[in-house]
C-alpha cells in the first residue's frame, strides 16, 4: 500500500498536471458512488416538473434499493404518495447490469388491485412524466458507452462519452463532469447529431451521509424548450439491512411500512 502511494506520489511530482487517469477506473468508481452507496438504501424523494409554459406538477415517493452486487444487479421499489392520482401506486424494478438482459419491471395500480408487468421498454423515456428518464433514476450501465478524458479542472474530470450502439439512444454523445473529490458525476450535458447541447442533468447539492457523498438535489433541464424537473431527496439512510423479501410482489400490495417511515 505504502509502495503504491509513494509510486503514485512520485509520478505526480515528476509529471505535474498530466497525471495518467485510469478512465475505466474513474467511471467505475463514479458509477459506484452515484448508484451503489452502501449495500442498500432508502430515501424520500420529491420531484417538481415544470413545463415550458411554467405549469408545475409534483411527484412524491419513497425509494428502497438493495444491491445484489456493487456495479451489478439491483432491486428497487418506488412507493408513490402524491399526487392523489398516483397515491399508493408502486413501481418495482429488478435491474440487470448485463445489458443483454432487460430489466424486469412491474407497476401496481391500487384502484384495480392490478399488478401489471411492464414490457422492457426504451429506458430513455420519461420517468412518471418528469424530465428524468428511467435510466437517470436506475443508472445507465457504463458498459454502454465509450469514455475518453477530455479535460480536467481543479475540481472535475471532464469526459466525453460516446454510445457504443448509437441508434439505441437519442443523443450523439455527452460530456460528464466527475468531481475529483467525491467521484460523483456533477454535470452531464447531452448533445445531438448537430452538436447542440439540448439536455442537462446536474447535481445541485451534495451532502455526506453516513460517509457516502450523496446528491440531495438534482435538476434535469430541457435546454431547447425550457422545461425542467427538480428532484430532492430527504431522510436518506444507507446499510439498513433491507431484507430480500421487501423487494417482492408482496410489497406491492402490502407496503413494508417500517422501511417507509
Amino acid at each position: 500500500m505504502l509502495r503504491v502511494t509513494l509510486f503514485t506520489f512520485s509520478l505526480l511530482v515528476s509529471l505535474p498536471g498530466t497525471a495518467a487517469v485510469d478512465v475505466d477506473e474513474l467511471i467505475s468508481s463514479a458509477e459506484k458512488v452515484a448508484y451503489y452507496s452502501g449495500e442498500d438504501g432508502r430515501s424520500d424523494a420529491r420531484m417538481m416538473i415544470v413545463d415550458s409554459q411554467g405549469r408545475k406538477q409534483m411527484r412524491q415517493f419513497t425509494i428502497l434499493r438493495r444491491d445484489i452486487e456493487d456495479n451489478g444487479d439491483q432491486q428497487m421499489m418506488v412507493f408513490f404518495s402524491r399526487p392523489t392520482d398516483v397515491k399508493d401506486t408502486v413501481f418495482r424494478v429488478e435491474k440487470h447490469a448485463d445489458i443483454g438482459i432487460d430489466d424486469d419491471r412491474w407497476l401496481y395500480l391500487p384502484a384495480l388491485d392490478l399488478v401489471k408487468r411492464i414490457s422492457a421498454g426504451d429506458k430513455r423515456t420519461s420517468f412518471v412524466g418528469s424530465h428524468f428518464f428511467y435510466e437517470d433514476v436506475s443508472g445507465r450501465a457504463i458498459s454502454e458507452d465509450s469514455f475518453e478524458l477530455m479535460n480536467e479542472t481543479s475540481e472535475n474530470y471532464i469526459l466525453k462519452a460516446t454510445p457504443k450502439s448509437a441508434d439505441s439512444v437519442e443523443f450523439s454523445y455527452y460530456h460528464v463532469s466527475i468531481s475529483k473529490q467525491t467521484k460523483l458525476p456533477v454535470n452531464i450535458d447531452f448533445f445531438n447529431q448537430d452538436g447542440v447541447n439540448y439536455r442537462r442533468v446536474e447535481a445541485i447539492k451534495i451532502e455526506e451521509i453516513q460517509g457516502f457523498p450523496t446528491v440531495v438535489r438534482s435538476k434535469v433541464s430541457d435546454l431547447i424548450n425550457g422545461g425542467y424537473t427538480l428532484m430532492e431527496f430527504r431522510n436518506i439512510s444507507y446499510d439498513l439491512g433491507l431484507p430480500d423479501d421487501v423487494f417482492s410482489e408482496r410489497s406491492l400490495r402490502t407496503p413494508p411500512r417500517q422501511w417507509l417511515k
Partner: protein
Amino acid sequence: MKNRLSSRTFLTMMLLFVTLNTLAQTSEDEWDMGDWSEEAVESPIFTGFIDVSAGNRISSDPVIDGAKTLRDIRLQVQWEKLLSHSSLTITSDLYYDGVLDDVKLDVREFAWQGRLDAFGEWGKYFDLKLGQQVLTWGTGDYLFLNDLFPKDYQSFFAGRNDDYLKAPSLSAKLSGFFDWGNIDLVVTPEFAADNYINGDYFSFFSSQVGSNIAPGFEVNPPYLPESPEYALRYYKTFGSSELAIYAYDGFHKSPSSQTSEGQAYFSELKVYGASIVSPAFAGLLKAEFAYYASRDDNQGTDPLTPNDQSRLLVGYEQELMKDVSGSLQWYLERTHDYSQLKLNSLTPEYDPNRSRIVLTQQLVYRLMQQTLTINAFNFYSTSDKDGFLKLRVDYSPVDQWRLATGMNLFYGDDNHTFYNQFEDASNFYASFKYFY
C-alpha cells in the same frame, strides 16, 4: 335511494367539501415544493376527486328512451389510517347518476390489511385483507379468464374510467408467501355478481324475443345465490417468467341461466386454469387457460344453462417506438358438448359458434411529456364478425385536474352476436376530474 337533491345542489356541496379540505395548501420558492418542510405539515385528512362526466348514444335505441348513457357527478373520498403493521382504508364514491336520476353510494374499499406477524412465528408468512375490496388477477387486457371477481360492464360500456371496470366485493383475502411459491385464497361469503348489462342503460339481445330488450331487471334471492365463492391462486416466479395456477368455486357472474319458467338465475360454476407471463423478443408474451365447468349442465343438454367451456388467451405486447406501445391478443372460447347444445337448443339460429374467437389490438401513445395519452383498443371477433372499439384521450398537464374524452363503438353484421347486440349502446363521452 331516490334523489331529492338537484344536481346543482349536489355539485355545490361537493365543491364546498373540497375547498374546506384543501384550505391549507401553499406554494413557495422553487426548491420549497409546497409543504415538504422539516416539520411535516399534516397531510390532508381526506384525498380524492370530483368527477363530472357525460355521454350520449351515437344513434337512438328503439327500446330505451333518451340519448343519455352517462351523467355522473361524483365525489370520491379516500381515508387511510396507518397502524403499526397494518392499515385501514376507506375509499368511497358518492355520486348522482343522471341517467337513472338517482344518488348512489359506491364503497370501493373499506378494508383492514396487514401482516399477521403478531399472531406468532407462522404469521410472518401471511398477509390478510378483510372487508370491501377490489380484487384482480390473471394476465389478459380487458379479457378475463381466471379472474372471476366482479366486473362492472355498465361502467365499462359507458366510458367511466377503467378503475370502474372492477366492482368491489366484501371478501377475505389470505396471502401466503413461501420459498415454494405464493398462495392467495379469497373467500367471498356472499356471492358478488357482475354489474351486468340489464337494460338500465343499455339494451341487450333476447333470444326468446328475437330482438333487443331493456327490462332493467334485477335478480333477487333465491335466484341470486347467497352462498360463498372461493378463489385460489398459486404463483411463482422462475427467472423472469411468472407462472400461476388458479381455481374458482362459485357461480356464473351474470344471470346467464334460466329456469323453465323463464326466471334468470346464476348457475353453479367451477373454473380451473393456469397462466404464464414471460419476456420474449422485445416485449412480453403471455398465455392463459381456463376450464369452465358449468355444474348445472354437465352434459350440455340443458338449453337454458351455459355449457362447459375451455378458454384460451395468447397475448404479446411491446414498445413499438419511443412513447408508443402496442399489444395483440388472441382469445378462444370453445363450447363443449356442442352437439348436445344444438340438439336441445330452443333458438338454434342464435346459438353461439362452437368456437368464438376474438382478436384484440391496442395502441397507446403518450405525448407532451406524458400529459396527453391516446389509447385505442379494439376487440374483433372473427367468428361472430363483430367488434368493439374503445377510443380514449386523456389530458392532464397539472396535478389538479384531468380531462378525458372517448368513444365506445360496437359494430358487426348480426343483431344477436356478443358485441354487435350493443350496437345502439355505441356512445361518446367526456369527463372532467378535479383532484383535491
